[in-house]
C-alpha cells in the first residue's frame, strides 16, 4: 500500500481538465483530414466529396496523404438531441456489435487516470438495464442483431444511443452500419476515435459543452 502511495505522490496530477481545459493529446489521423495540396485521391471508402471529408465514413487510413493532412481538431460531433437530464451522472454500457477490438479499448481508456471518467460523473455499468447510454462499436453483424435490440429495449428512458467509430456509423470498410436497426443519437467519428473525441461527444450529448 505504501509503495502505491509513494508512486502516486511521485507521479503527481495526471488527469486532464478537458473539456474545461485543453486536451493534452490527439492522435493525428483520428482528426478529420483537410485538403493541403492539389491532386487526385483514391479514398477507399469514398469519404471525400468536393474536398470535404465525411467524418462518419473516414477510416483514418491516411491514404489521402499528402494531398490531405490531419486537421488536428476535435471533429464535429453529429447528434440529433441533447439529454441535459444526464448531465450530472451517466452510466455507459459498452456494446460490441462487430469490431476489430480497437474502438472498445478506446472507450475503456476513459477509465485510465488521464481521463478519469468519474470526475465527469461517468461510469461503466455491467448491464444495459442500468445504463443511460449505450456505446455501440463495430459493424452490424447478424449474430449481434438480437442482442443489440434486446439491450436497447431493456434500457430505461431517457437513453442515448452512441455509434462509436466508422464501422458503427457507416459500416466503415467492411460492413453495414448499425443505423439499419436503430436510430443513432450521437455519432463519434474515427477509426478508432481518440478517447478525447469520445469525451467530447459524451459531454456534448449531455449539454455540458
Amino acid at each position: 500500500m505504501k509503495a502505491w502511495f509513494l508512486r502516486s505522490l511521485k507521479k503527481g496530477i495526471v488527469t486532464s481538465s478537458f473539456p474545461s481545459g485543453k486536451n493534452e493529446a490527439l492522435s493525428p489521423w483520428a482528426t478529420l483530414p483537410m485538403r493541403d495540396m492539389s491532386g487526385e485521391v483514391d479514398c477507399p471508402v469514398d469519404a471525400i466529396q468536393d474536398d470535404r471529408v465525411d467524418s462518419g465514413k473516414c477510416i483514418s487510413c491516411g491514404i489521402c496523404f499528402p494531398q490531405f493532412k490531419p486537421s488536428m481538431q476535435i471533429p464535429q460531433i453529429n447528434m440529433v438531441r441533447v439529454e441535459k437530464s444526464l448531465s450530472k451522472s451517466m452510466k455507459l454500457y459498452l456494446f460490441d456489435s462487430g469490431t476489430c477490438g480497437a474502438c472498445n479499448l478506446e472507450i475503456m481508456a476513459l477509465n485510465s487516470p488521464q481521463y478519469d471518467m468519474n470526475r465527469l460523473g461517468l461510469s461503466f455499468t455491467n448491464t444495459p438495464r442500468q445504463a443511460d447510454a449505450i456505446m455501440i462499436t463495430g459493424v452490424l453483424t447478424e449474430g449481434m442483431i438480437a442482442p443489440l435490440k434486446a439491450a436497447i429495449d431493456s434500457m430505461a428512458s431517457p437513453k442515448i444511443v452512441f455509434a462509436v467509430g466508422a464501422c458503427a456509423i457507416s459500416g466503415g470498410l467492411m460492413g453495414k452500419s448499425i443505423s439499419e436497426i436503430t436510430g443513432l443519437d450521437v455519432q463519434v467519428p474515427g477509426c478508432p476515435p481518440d478517447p478525447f473525441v469520445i469525451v467530447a461527444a459524451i459531454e456534448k450529448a449531455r449539454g455540458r459543452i
Partner: protein
Amino acid sequence: MISPVRIVFEEDGKMFALRRYSEALEDFSGDLLKKRSVDLKPTEKLSLFPYGPSAGGLTESIYFSLLTSGERIEAMNYDTSFKDRKISVSGNDIPKAVLLMERINGIHSASYSSLFCDLIERSSGIEVSQEIMDLRILMMEMERISHHLFVAGRLSGGASQNIGSMNIYLLREELLRIIGKTFGHRYFFGINKPGGTGREIDVSNIYEKLESIVKEYTEIYRTLMDSRIFIDRTDSTAIIRDEISAGPVLRGFGKNMDGRSQHRYYNKLNVRISTVDSGDSLARYVVRSEEIFSSWEIIKKILERNSRFKIMEEVKMDKIQGTGEKISGYMETPSGDLSMIVSVRSGKISFFKYSSPSLWNLRVFADAMKGNNFADFYFGLESLGLCVSETGDIR
C-alpha cells in the same frame, strides 16, 4: 515434439499443411484436429450458466456456457460466431487487403499488416531494406508492450489490485499517446505498405519516454509480485499445459518457444524468451511482464540504429500482379503465433488463409477450466489476452 499444424487446406485433391513457426507448406496426410464439442447437460445438481455474448466485463462479444455446481466448473463451451464480420480478403486488390489486415485484429494491426506485407513482397520478389524491417519490428514490439500492459491491468484489477491496475492503465495510455504522436495513429493503422511505409516516421525523441514507462512498470511489477492477494488470486488458476496453445500461454508452462527467435526479421536481435513452469494465470502474467522487458531490449537496439524512417521509394501496388503461387509465413503477435498463406493473381488476392493465436488459446482454455473454481474463470480468461475479433470468419 513436431510443431502443431496451424492451417490445412485441400487443392486438386491433395491436402497441404502449414505448421507453427513455418514458412513452408508441406503435404498433409494425418488426421485433422476435431472441432471441439462438449455436450453440456444440466442436471439436478449442475446448472448451466450463460455469459455473453454481450455482458459487462467482456471486452468483446463472445458467448460462454459453463456447467457448474455453483463452486466448481464441470465443463465449458464457447461461441465466437456472434460478432462474425464475415470479411472476405480474397478478391480484393492489395491496398484494400492491407487495410483489412489492419482491422482483422485492430489492437495487433502491426503484426497482421507486417506479416501480410512480407508475404506480398515475397510473392512478388520485392526486397525490403533492413530499415523497413526495423520499422516493422519497432511497431510490433511497441504493440506487444501495449497489449501486455492492457492484460496486466485487467488481471490486476480483477484481483482487487485497483491502484495497481490504474497505474498500469496510466502507463499504457502514455505509451498509446507516444505511438499516436510518432506514428500518426494509436494502433499503427496506415503505416505498413508492401515495399515500405506510407508515412515518414521520426523516432528520434521517444527513447527516454519509453525507457521511463518500462522503468515504472518494473516498479509496479515488483509491487504486485509482493502482494499476497494478487498472488493468491492468480496462482494455480486455469492451469494450461496443452502444446497446441500459443504465445504467453505456451511459454507459461515452460515451453521455450517464441516465433521471433527464428524469424528472419529478428535475426541478430537475440530475442530473450521468458518461460515459467506452472501454467497458471500467474505464470502467464509473469511471462507477459518479462516480455515487456525483453521487447524493450529489442526496441533499444532498433532505436540505436534508426532515428527516422523515410517513405521508401514507392512500390506501385498496382504493379504487383502476382503469379498465383502460394506464399506462407508467420509472426509472433502479442497473443502468440499467427500463420498466414496468401497468393496474388492479376493484382488481386486469389487465396487467403490464416490461423490466429486466440483461436488456439480459447480452445485450450475451455478444456482447462474443468475442475476450476467458478470464480477463477475471470482470472483465466483475462490472463489469456484473448482477441475475439481475430477468431472470426475471415476468408
